[in-house]
């Protein structure tokens, strides 16, 4: 009796192990796999208007809306979104926790080297939220680096954190802020002097905060306009290419603009550039 119990257990462990290793071998059939499964797992942040999760748990925002539509056209019924920190998205994708990242993760050469991006989807410049009147006179990441008292808050692993570090702001003055609400709170409390996010995100946050003591500097001087794309795992290029085909069709037909423009994004900006340009090392 006992022996049989152990055997059953060993067998189920073996089955589990087999089902674990199976997906790794099936990269070419990724799309088929997703169709069969009926949904694609996407990584999002919670940073309106790029990505948003409503109080009822409904996922919206420009990036998931575009992804949902394209996956539907590819025959994948739905998307299942999980909220992740920006910094954890690419490792999560590589570890197979997500099928795609659709979160406003801007294309930068080092990210292009780590994942397979689609063509550009959402473009935006960078912005600062700061105390009214800009008491420290900060208009660029370089200004923050040059002022030994200035501290900047940014999402961990986000583009803004990297831009600040690249501009020479020392690590201890770049505060990793967990989410938009705490960023605004830390700014109001004087814990940070600047909170940096893309323009549309900052505008959205400040519109919700309704705080007359805060203002926006946009665009940040010296920071170019960045665009995101849906990011796929290296090796899933065939899925990425299929995604690109549908994306191009939607851009052509104007449906793309119809989805993203209500959120404030410019379709023309995304269409005027390409992955090749954005991924090229500066």
């Amino acid at each position: 009796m006992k022996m049989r119990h152990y055997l059953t257990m060993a067998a189920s462990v073996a089955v589990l192990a087999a089902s674990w290793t199976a997906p790794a071998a099936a990269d070419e059939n990724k799309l088929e796999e997703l169709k069969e499964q009926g949904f694609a797992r996407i990584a999002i942040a919670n940073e309106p208007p790029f990505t948003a999760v409503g109080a009822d748990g409904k996922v919206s925002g420009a990036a998931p809306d575009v992804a949902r539509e394209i996956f539907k056209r590819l025959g994948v019924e739905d998307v299942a979104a999980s909220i992740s920190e920006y910094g954890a998205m690419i490792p999560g994708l590589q570890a197979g926790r997500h099928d795609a990242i659709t979160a406003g993760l801007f294309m930068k050469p080092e990210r292009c080297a780590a994942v397979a991006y689609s063509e550009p989807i959402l473009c935006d410049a960078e912005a600062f939220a700061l105390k009214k009147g800009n008491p420290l006179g900060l208009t660029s990441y370089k200004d923050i680096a040059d002022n030994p008292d200035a501290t900047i808050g940014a999402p961990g692993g986000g583009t803004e954190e990297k831009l600040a570090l690249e501009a020479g702001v020392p690590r201890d003055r770049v505060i990793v802020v967990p989410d938009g609400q705490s960023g605004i709170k830390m700014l109001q409390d004087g814990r940070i002097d600047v909170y940096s996010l893309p323009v549309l995100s900052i505008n959205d946050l400040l519109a919700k905060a309704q705080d007359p003591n805060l203002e926006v500097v946009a665009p940040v001087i010296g920071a170019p306009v960045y665009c995101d794309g849906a990011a796929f795992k290296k090796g899933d290029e065939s899925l990425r290419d299929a995604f690109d085909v549908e994306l191009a069709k939607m851009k052509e037909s104007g449906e793309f603009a119809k989805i993203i423009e209500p959120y404030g994004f410019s379709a023309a900006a995304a269409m005027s550039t390409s992955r090749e340009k954005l991924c090229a090392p500066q």
Partner: protein
Amino acid sequence: MEWDWDFVWQIMPTLLQGFKITILATILGAAVALVIGLVFAVLRMTAPRPIARVTGFIVEFIRGTPLLVQLYFLFFVLPDIGIRLPALVAGVIGLGIHYGTYISEVYRGGIENVPRGQWEAAKATNLTTRQAWIHVILPQAIPPMIPALANYIIAMFKETPLLSAITVLELMNQAKSIANSNYRYIEPMTLVGVFFLVISLISVFFLRKLEARYSRVDER
């Protein structure tokens, strides 16, 4: 994904920087906890009844709520009433108060374990309350507490990664920020584990020694 030693050496200085903050937070947190714990214990045992009741309630309240929630409260809510603590200070206070409540129970247990007869004997030999505490009660109460206190401090040390949630740049946060820009978790997270393990093992070694030394107190 394989292990990359070059990457390990490259990130080591950053991790060590974070580790310094972890150690600092532990030492300061332990100091706060030891003092706060004593205050709670003494208030609960000797203060007039209403105060003892209130202290008891506060201790139970803090013990019954998660440390992470308390840290968020200290960091994000207190500024609303005009108290803006730097991140590390908020973290040390959070750790100190939380573990102070556990430690107060250790003190209480240790003090209550001193037989009543010792109090009566101290009274009978005309010692003042102060003298009775310092010369009779505490010297007998403290040694058995030491292993339990050390245990709580080691436990607190292992809770310091929670401070990363309130933007303290300690070991865990540094490791996360390394992972964020290199897309690799395996080396930074393994090293975080190793750092904690090394210190814990050393602490356990000394803890054993303390236990060995102070468990003999009765035989002396």
